[in-house]
């Protein structure tokens, strides 16, 4: 049972009864309802194959829903119209032939805005992700974590209102992932952008997000929504707190129910 949208906030973007069939007959999504609040850090959590990435691609406009609708708020529509969406893939997805600087400049270059001011913006955003001094490096000269930072910098350079992240840290080791988690939270607090973060890690979703939408598979839909109302800033102390452990336990239970709901439709 998809939860009804709560009253009292105007969603930045809302998915209404969205369904998606692939040409090979797979029903990836059915009856997906999700309302994204402006400024929130929303995690999409679910077992693999539950359509998390498909939902994200539909929001990004990279994929068309077969049924249902996507509604943008006035603000969100403006963002969508101006392409002020940032997207971070699971892989860093950098152009290997271009320097870090040129990779981050790419979105501005496509918009025909590669001017002197653009160079300053690139420098500023590289600074923000902790890559000052690496502008002239090529992607292959960087570690996996640093490449992901470049990818995040590229998504942030257009100052997006909505940042979509598709399991961005799944391929990284734990030490790197924790460091990027903390840095991402700091950037989010500074930039006040809205983030939708797809993950299959309970711990990551609880640590990062202000709200978790747990998805059930076959077909993909939102099974439950959980508020993680611990105030920000969160740091290492939160990771080891009893509160964190309780949220993780609760989320794991819901995730188990969602997975079971998918297995026996």
């Amino acid at each position, binding site marked *: 049972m998809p939860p009804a949208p709560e009253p009292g906030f105007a969603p930045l973007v809302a998915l209404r009864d969205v369904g998606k069939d692939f040409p090979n007959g797979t029903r990836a999504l059915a009856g997906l309802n999700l309302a994204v609040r402006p400024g929130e850090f929303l995690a999409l959590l679910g077992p693999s194959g539950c359509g998390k990435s498909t939902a994200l691609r539909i929001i990004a406009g990279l994929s068309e829903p077969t049924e249902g609708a996507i509604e943008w708020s006035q603000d969100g529509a403006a963002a969508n119209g101006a392409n002020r969406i940032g997207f971070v893939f699971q892989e860093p*997805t950098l152009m*290997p*032939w271009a320097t870090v600087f040129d990779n981050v400049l790419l979105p501005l270059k*496509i918009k025909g805005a590669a001017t002197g001011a653009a160079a300053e913006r690139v420098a500023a955003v590289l600074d923000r992700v902790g890559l000052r001094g690496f502008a002239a490096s090529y992607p292959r000269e960087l570690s996996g974590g640093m490449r992901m930072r470049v990818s995040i910098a590229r998504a942030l350079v257009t100052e997006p209102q909505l940042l979509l992240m598709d399991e961005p840290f799944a391929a990284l080791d734990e030490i790197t992932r924790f460091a990027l988690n903390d840095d991402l939270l700091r950037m989010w607090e500074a930039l006040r952008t809205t983030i939708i973060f797809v993950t299959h890690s309970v711990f990551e979703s609880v640590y990062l997000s202000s709200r978790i939408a747990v998805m059930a598979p076959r077909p993909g839909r939102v099974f439950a929504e959980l508020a993680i109302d611990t105030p920000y800033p969160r740091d290492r102390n939160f990771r080891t707190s009893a509160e964190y452990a309780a949220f993780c336990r609760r989320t794991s239970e819901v995730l188990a129910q969602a997975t079971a709901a998918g297995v026996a439709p």
Partner: protein
Amino acid sequence: MKAPRAAVRDRRGQRERTLRVGLPILVLAIVLAVWELAVRIGGIPSYVLPAPSLILQTLISDGGLLSQSLLVTLATTLEGFLLAAAGGVGLAVLFNQSRLVEYSLYPYAVVLQVTPIVAIAPLLLIYLPQHAAVLFCAWIVAFFPVLANTTLGLNSVDRNLADLFTLYGASRGQVLWYLNLPSALPYILGGLRIAGGLSLIGAVVAEIAAGSAGAGSGLAYRIVESGYRLNIPRMFAALLLLSIAGIVIFYALSLVNYLALRRWHESALAAER
């Protein structure tokens, strides 16, 4: 512990390199020595098999004539190569932009490729002026690897990167220029490396087909002409020049390949330990 082991490894690497350069030279020296001795001891006449020393002498004495011919052949090769590069990449881009054009023309590109050039050359010589015919032969032989490789490269673009360009609303021209062509560059350069040698072959085949009928003066023409005059040492000398030209072309294109890709592509990176 580490330093001595590294030193041993370095020494082993050095020996490896010495062997790789030294052994082929040793083999060449042995073959030339046996050849020279066999000709001298056996008293083989030079119109049957000239000794290496005589070939070298001929190369020097006929140097003016042969180097002029070499320049003619090289000019044809270069023109054919440039046309093949432009034609191959251009057609591949056209195919990439329009399925209809690809469906219409691709089979004929394959036909041009699989029909032996030796069989086409005499026909071309009937319809085209000689220089144009020779050039066309060089082009036909060389353009297909460029076309096939570039097509492969344009189709091997990272899907996520393509999505990213879509997300930011890139135009077709931007996708082509900023994404498809750079992605395809390693493939294009691979095709050009093959095309370099092939355009030399195409030029030589066409010159030979033109043979005595033509007023040509390229190296292959010299070989045919020397054959008629039983000037076998000059045939060998011309052949040697052709081989050297082919080797130089190959390594020149390899160098271009390395310089263009050394910063980012796996194929051009030094092995890391």
